[in-house]
């Protein structure tokens, strides 16, 4: 489905320096029983945000009032595990628009891009620097510009550029979805089916 356009963002960030965060942590399986895309934000990192008693786990960063914002900084290999797109929905519905990590798992990365959630890959040194900046000053606003493919921390000399596939960049800048693109080429798809040589 289509999503909001994303051109640039100025926001504080939430640091989550844990590596190998898998999609079972992002959205536990018991929340996948929904038949509609609703309420996933409430269950983001459910088993880390809440104790078994349903009290908030005060040591988890999302429950720490110091940190807030639409940017999530996460340790390497973010989103590994299941293909559940619900993980990207949960992150987006909670309010994040960008995840910055030093490494993304493949399926999660695709799911994020397909939902207008921007996964930005930086080097581990750059990630560490961002984490330190935010820990030192949780109110620091970070500027992300998709058009320029840049991340800037104002009033510092921290500036980096990131890679993104140019087709996906166009889609996210304009809020286009792949579904419509594919619908517009149905006649080419039918021709492919007719031309196929396989006999079975």
């Amino acid at each position, binding site marked *: 489905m289509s999503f909001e356009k994303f051109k640039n963002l100025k926001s504080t960030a939430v640091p989550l320096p844990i590596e190998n965060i898998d999609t079972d942590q992002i959205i536990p*399986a018991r929340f996948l029983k929904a038949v509609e895309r609703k309420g996933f934000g409430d269950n983001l990192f459910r088993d880390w945000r809440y104790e078994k008693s349903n009290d908030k786990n005060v040591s988890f960063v999302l429950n720490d009032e110091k940190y807030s914002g639409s940017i999530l900084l996460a340790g390497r290999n973010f989103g590994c595990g299941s293909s559940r797109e619900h993980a990207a929905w949960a992150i987006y519905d909670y309010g994040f628009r960008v995840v910055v990590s030093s490494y993304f798992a493949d399926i999660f990365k695709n799911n994020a891009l397909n939902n207008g959630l921007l996964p930005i890959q930086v080097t581990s040194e750059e990630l560490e620097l961002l984490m330190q900046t935010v820990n030192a000053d949780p109110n620091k606003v970070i500027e992300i510009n998709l058009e320029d493919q840049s991340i800037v921390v104002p009033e510092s000399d921290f500036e980096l550029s990131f890679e993104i596939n140019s087709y996906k960049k166009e889609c996210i800048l304009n809020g286009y979805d792949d579904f419509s693109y*594919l619908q517009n*080429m149905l006649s080419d798809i039918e021709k492919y089916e007719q031309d196929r040589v396989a006999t079975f």
Partner: protein
Amino acid sequence: MEYTTLFDKIWDTHIVRKIEDGPNVLYIDRHYIHEVTSPVAFGNLEKRGLKVLRPEKTVATMDHNIPTLDQHLPIKDLLSRAQVQQLEKNCKNHNIELFDLKHENLGIVHVIGPELGLTLPGMTIVCGDSHTSTHGALGAVAFGIGTSEVEMVFGSQCIMQTKPRRMLISINGKMNKAVTSKDLILYIISQISSSGGTGYFIEFAGDTIRNLSMEARMSLCNMSIECGARGGLIAPDQVTFDYLKGRENSPKGEDWEKAVKEWSMLKTDDNAVFDKEYHYDAADILPMITYGTNPGMGIRITDRIPENITDDSFNNALKYMGFEKGQTILGKAVDYVFVGSCTNGRIEDLRMFAELVKGRRKAENITAWIVPGSKAVEKQAQKEGLVEILEAAGFSLRQPGCSACLAMNDDKIPPGKYSVSTSNRNFEGRQGPGARTLLASPLVAAAAAVTGVITNPADLF
């Protein structure tokens, strides 16, 4: 002339359009769907006023949410019941074949597809489930996708994907005693890590692979995703053709002859170059077991947990699992044994388990869930007398479903309890909040089930 790999041959011949500095539009031969990742896709399709473009290429099953006991009764959990009913409604509306709870071929999607000859060499196959890589065992390019992509396939029978790079993993040599293909893949992941395959599609090769049965190949390819790869495949050969001959949807008669001829050409060219290669010796591989909270944290069952790793995620994993650096796993008492899942829920897996437990008794401290991957597997187990062997040893066979692999149904491991599981993921809370999962082969699971502690199955033969 360009020399290409098997993966290239299948991928490249399915490209409908190459987008400049963007993904390929890839045609999909087979779309498997299940009740968890399809409802929102169907809902969106309907909002757009569209129908599924190629229902005849779409196959549906219900497996993640369903109970594994009393399947003839209405599902107790209301949300699970709603999801299952939604799938029934959607399949009826779009004229899609559905293997529902009453169907004689009900089962886990990645078990029934191959069983029914719905997966064939050279196909491109997708499903909203990461273990779709299983079908690669038959020489297909098969991979998991998200719900938005499920929607795209519904609407156009195509998907947009960046072509992964090519990785070769070859294993040569004779397998050691009590080693299964599950141990091979756990060993590989322990060597290259749970992110070592990200961005790649793997071809598994080598004589050790050639000597695996089709079901053993499926267990191996199933876990390709656990090292981060998009998928993994094995070139078709006589084992593949023998497996497929006569299956319900396999080509018949003249079509069969033609098909085998074409499938025989599906192999990597001798001079083709992969982007990355790993080579292993089967002599180095023993029965494996995981000790941590990702599938890469595994050791040979006779080894000790590593001592000299210092990073936080390693320490946190050990803390969650209640293990210490440098300790042995052998002899550790466990609580649950789960045999099943799309990884190891087939007849050969049940045979292995039964052979080891035959004449022995389930240990007092163990609760065991033995879950066949499909109704066909269940019937075969009954026919072969495996059920009697299991019952004599104090085990019982449940009904098919994904069950405790991800605990979406009632089969949940309680907090803090140890489970030896033939499934594919040991993440924190995967089998239930606080559950501690040790991934292993059906033989390691059987050994634990009869001794009550982690035991090397090689010692019990």
